[in-house]
């Protein structure tokens, strides 16, 4: 029902407007503020593009990890409690995979340029490559 372009595409255009047109014309402090705004707009666009999928997948993983149903917030609180009490740890089936996937999915939206994130993706891609060659 809603028409094109969709929200994320319009935000991308706003981000370009800020970076390419406005920032070069602004004094240093205002240009810095405009960059913060452009970074925020890019984050929101990524949240629109990926947010629903990564939260749905996280809910699925939590349901199978904990063997129960509930909202994402409830299940995360449950998981937190079980980890804190030592009932689940990195050796527990599926826990490390879930925490890695959740963390990397958040970074994909929050800060895809962060150096440790890039490095982690490269390392994991390298491991997959090695496994395929084995």
């Amino acid at each position: 029902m809603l028409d094109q372009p969709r929200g994320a595409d319009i935000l991308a255009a706003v981000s370009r407007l800020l970076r390419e047109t406005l920032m070069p014309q602004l004094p240093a402090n205002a240009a810095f503020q405009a960059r913060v705004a452009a970074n925020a707009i890019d984050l929101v666009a990524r949240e629109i593009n990926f947010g629903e999928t990564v939260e749905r997948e996280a809910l699925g993983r939590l349901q199978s990890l904990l063997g129960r149903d509930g909202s994402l917030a409830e299940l995360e609180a449950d998981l937190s409690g079980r980890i804190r009490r030592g009932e689940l740890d990195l050796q527990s089936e599926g826990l490390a995979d879930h925490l890695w996937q959740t963390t990397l999915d958040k970074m994909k939206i929050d800060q895809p340029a962060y150096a440790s994130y890039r490095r982690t993706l490269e390392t994991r891609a390298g491991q997959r490559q090695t496994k395929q060659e084995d």
Partner: protein
Amino acid sequence: MNAMDNTFSHALESMTARIVPGARGIADLRRLSAGATLETWSFDAVDGDRVLHKLILRRSPGGLRSAESLSLEAEAGLIRVLDGSGVPVPTVVHTLVAADNLGDGFLMTRIEGETIARKVLRDAQFASIRPRLAAQFGTIRGTMTKVDTARLPPLPFKPAEIIVARLASRYDSLGVARPVFDLAFRWLEQNAPAPLKQYRLVHGDYRNGNIIFGAEGVRAVLDWEVAHIGDPAEDLAWISTPPWRFGELDRPVGGLGSRRQLFDAYEAASGERVDPARVYYWEVLGSLRWGVSCASMLEWFSSGRDGSVERAMIARRVSENELDLMRILTGTD
């Protein structure tokens, strides 16, 4: 200038005239930091056109500061003891008294140099000293270890278990479950380091951003407001946590060098051995501490205390700490 600013600059002028011999006024008054409870001002004590003394005022105009911070009077007392100990610090010129009408605080000599960590990491003028800075951080930390704690003003005692317990209650009070943080808390609670025979002076926020650099190296270590008595490994670890690497992942110490350089220089200066497992413990704790700080920004933003875009974006940097913690806890950092 409004009336309050006027009262402030007049009080500053008459205090300066009392403290700096020959001073007849002040010039180039600038506010450097805009914290709500702590102000940092830069100005010159002058006689006409002649600059007699370049100064920094750190003051609290009144109001409550974080319970974790020392009083400014205690901070000044600490810096006075360190001055001449080999730990590079600015010289405290005066501790404010009631008659100064300037609140609590102290006046110190202004040391020129660079405090923006990214510039030290990238600018050409620092290229020749960069390879030596990780070792210099170790030497300075080692010199702090040799300071006789009996000579220091009263400082809070904060071993790892006290810091972990306070952090846990701060995290719990935020009310948002973060499984990665709980993984880190559990690990910290299960792997608490053995008590030390001797606890030492700890800076508590020992990182590039609290250091003044010149082209020849470190000029001074600043911001002693969270100094305490504790484990020196805390400082060695904090300067090696991921947030201060600025993308230079293969130079874990402040994006500048290796832990080996830091530890060797520390051992040479302090005469004590570094236990890398202890430093690793404090790296987990330091990353978690930074993460809980970012997580607490959500409350600032949603309550309207600071509704800025910048604050919102800092709150969304919690995931960065979760990633760093996952890397550290799985041995992939």
